[in-house]
């Protein structure tokens, strides 16, 4: 949690293009104050202009559009809150191809969608959330730019005792965090590291802004000895990376001790918070034994695209499990029952049939996050729609095409089983070549199902 109150600007604007300059200049001004460079400022104001123009045309007219611009530490966020009206947000799909040549829509509608598409592509992340009763929030984020730095390969020979602390605000702690991130980036596979370790200043800023929490281990002389970091994932869980340990002594006694201290301090830090469980989709080989449970594993091709290797996922509850309910399509029931039984989890499995949900809209919406360095893409359904199956297939091919020369990324899809409409999508997901792999307990509003795209492998 950031100590200082977040910087934030809110405007309520009538849905009328006459106010476009107001929205755009607010965005420009905020972008500069919140620390974006010229290019970032341009991206943000372009996105605001395009979103605003689009929403003026299609959003409900009974309420003003609420525009919020906020500083997120390493990024600037714009959020539009609006009532649905006739909005189609198809163009926000990563794979969206607005077809200017055909279709029943008028040319100007398509041009409007094209603007939306451009806006969503120029920002770094875009997402949509429905807050019920026809109210939606459209957000886009533009990252501040940070220089990339080379990982540090100097071996560390450390002097006990090791101590572990939460880095405080200030340049000294920031320097230590950056140093530790670069040491980790050198010693661990790229897949086991947050992308920000390669832009260490960004990592340190994320910690200062509370996007990441971190624990830093230091030896008797104050040298960085290890690192573990985590962030919230959904309202009820934290996802951690690490532990990363730096001692180079071949007996690994101090390294193991550091890893244990980091794990113990991590659990103490999160034990009395809102989080119900902690998990990691990229634990390092230094996770101390017996502290976390295995959720199973994914088969990932790895960053160089050569050879598949299992990537274990670990987790633990921070409290006693009181059970819960999840939605599930009947085709998925055997998998869920097997997994829950293996994990000794008690869940009521509720039946979600596609017929029970109403495909009210034509176009579905998927969120895509693509980490090129790690060769990993994650898809999440944001809005249901009649075109879900084709849309998903289009995403898969777009992701493969994106890779161009390099190997295609591993593609995962996260389903939140607290949403019956998401659970009901399962047959379509299966039909697209995805297989269920893991359950991440409490990682969404309830448990998340992780599916992996597999047909590309064979």
């Amino acid at each position, binding site marked *: 949690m950031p100590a200082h109150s977040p910087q934030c600007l809110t405007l309520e604007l009538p849905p009328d293009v006459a106010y476009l300059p107001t929205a755009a200049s607010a965005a420009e001004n905020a972008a500069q104050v919140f620390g974006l460079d010229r290019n970032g400022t341009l991206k943000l104001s372009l996105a605001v202009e395009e979103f605003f123009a689009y929403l003026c045309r299609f959003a409900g007219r009974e309420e003003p559009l609420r525009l919020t611009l906020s500083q997120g530490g390493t990024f600037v966020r714009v959020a539009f809150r609006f009532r649905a009206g006739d909005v189609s947000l198809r163009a926000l799909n990563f794979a969206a191809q607005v077809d200017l040549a055909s279709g029943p829509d008028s040319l100007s509608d398509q041009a409007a969608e094209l603007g939306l598409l451009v806006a969503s592509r120029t920002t770094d992340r875009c997402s949509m959330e429905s807050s019920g009763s026809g109210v939606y929030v459209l957000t886009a984020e533009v990252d501040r730019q940070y220089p990339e730095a080379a990982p540090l390969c100097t071996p560390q020979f450390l002097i006990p005792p090791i101590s572990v602390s939460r880095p405080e605000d200030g340049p000294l702690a920031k320097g230590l965090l950056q140093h530790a991130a670069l040491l980790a980036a050198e010693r661990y596979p790229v897949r086991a590291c947050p992308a920000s370790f390669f832009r260490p200043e960004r990592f340190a800023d994320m910690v200062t802004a509370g996007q990441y929490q971190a624990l830093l281990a230091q030896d008797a002389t104050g040298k960085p000895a290890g690192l573990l970091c985590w962030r919230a994932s959904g309202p009820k869980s934290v996802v951690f990376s690490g532990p990363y340990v730096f001692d180079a002594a071949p007996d690994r006694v101090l390294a193991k001790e550091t890893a244990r201290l980091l794990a113990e301090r991590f659990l103490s830090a999160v034990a009395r918070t809102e989080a119900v469980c902690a998990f990691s989709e990229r634990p390092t080989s230094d996770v101390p034994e*017996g502290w976390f449970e295995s959720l199973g594993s994914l088969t990932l091709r790895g960053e160089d695209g050569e050879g598949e290797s299992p990537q274990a996922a670990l987790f*633990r509850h921070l409290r006693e*499990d009181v059970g819960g309910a999840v939605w599930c399509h009947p085709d998925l029931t055997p998998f869920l029952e097997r997994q829950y039984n293996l994990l000794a989890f008690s869940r009521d499995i509720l039946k979600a049939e596609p017929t029970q949900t109403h495909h009210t809209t034509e176009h579905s919406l998927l969120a895509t996050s693509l980490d090129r360095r790690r060769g990993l893409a994650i898809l999440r359904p944001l809005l249901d729609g009649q075109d879900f199956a084709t849309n998903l297939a289009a995403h898969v091919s777009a992701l493969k095409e994106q890779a161009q020369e390099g190997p295609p990324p591993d593609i995962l899809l996260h389903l939140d089983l607290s949403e019956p409409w998401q659970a009901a999508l399962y047959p379509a997901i299966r039909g697209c070549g995805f297989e269920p792999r893991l359950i991440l307990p409490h990682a969404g509003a309830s448990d998340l199902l992780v599916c992996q795209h597999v047909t590309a492998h064979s």
Partner: protein
Amino acid sequence: MSLPIAELVPPHIRAFEAYVPSRPDAELMRTYKVDHLHRLNNNENALGPPPAARRVLESFEPPSAAAYPSGDCFFLRQTLGERFGKDPERFLVGNGSCEVIASVIKAFCDKGDNIITADKTFAVYEWVAEFSGFQARLIPLRNQGFDSEAMLRAMNGRTKILFVCNPNNPTGTWWKRDEMERFLRGVAGRAIVVLDEAYREYVDDEDFPDGMEIMERHKNVVVFRTFSKMYALAGLRVGYVCGQKDAVDYIRRTHIVYSVNSLGQPAAAAALLDDAEHIRSTQAMVAEAKALLLPAFDELGLPYVCGAGNFAMVQTPASDSLIYRQLMRRGVMVRTMTGFRFPNWIRVSLVQQPVMRDFLSAFRDVVDLVRQGGAA
């Protein structure tokens, strides 16, 4: 997008985790698909209340539930006064001692103040302080016990209360007379010292520093006691604070009247009247349970911590929450210790032999399963 209601809530409340009590037994049994459940998670006294208290409960006339209880527990305080040889005005009774914790913090802490306690102890001191917006300075345990010197070092001009859980839940450690004396001399009356003696009746040792006697020499000491543990009245929620009259008067100003019900007040008073035999048999039950469990933990090669009180902590070969789920599937409910900052430990209440044997057999199963890699 946060709801407008969240904007009404001060930041320390928004950041605060609401305590999630465990679900009712029937619901848990359905969830875990078992037909019985041994509750070994709350340090309850499985023998049930002493005979005189039972008689009070049995003779309760339903029509009298229509009348409000005594707002300040008049007769119960009379009984407490006689029992401890003190003015009844020096007692303040609450809806469990948990309520009294809140009243004490409200009475003494102001914006910017802090309280001091241990990191690995009963969580309510820390919770109440934090959701009231006061800093809780948490001092690591030393040899599983409260570290008196480190607590003294952590004091500053804004320290208002030091909470000492004596004996400590969950480690069962306690300060002897000389350590308590040194600590209180160190505090030198600069702050209130709360001695939480929830498990006091489980200690039968000359060297235990009895808070009721100490407060006569150290005027800044207040003592918490409860009827939930030894007296087996947890369901009726009765606990109290006792201290110097002026301190208790201030605490009373922040305390809700009528918070203790009409059944709890006379049952608690009656429990005090014939407790000698009850305490003896409870202590015997606990001793027998220890004699059964502790050697079994040794045999399993699992470290344990067990001192005063009707509970033992044992380290588990896997995450405590996995052990919990596996034990629940076998009809045994224990307390996971991650929330007490003892990850990979569980705490189990010490009760009658047949239940202890059931626990042990389920626990052995689960430990075997985990060691063979068969559990998750």
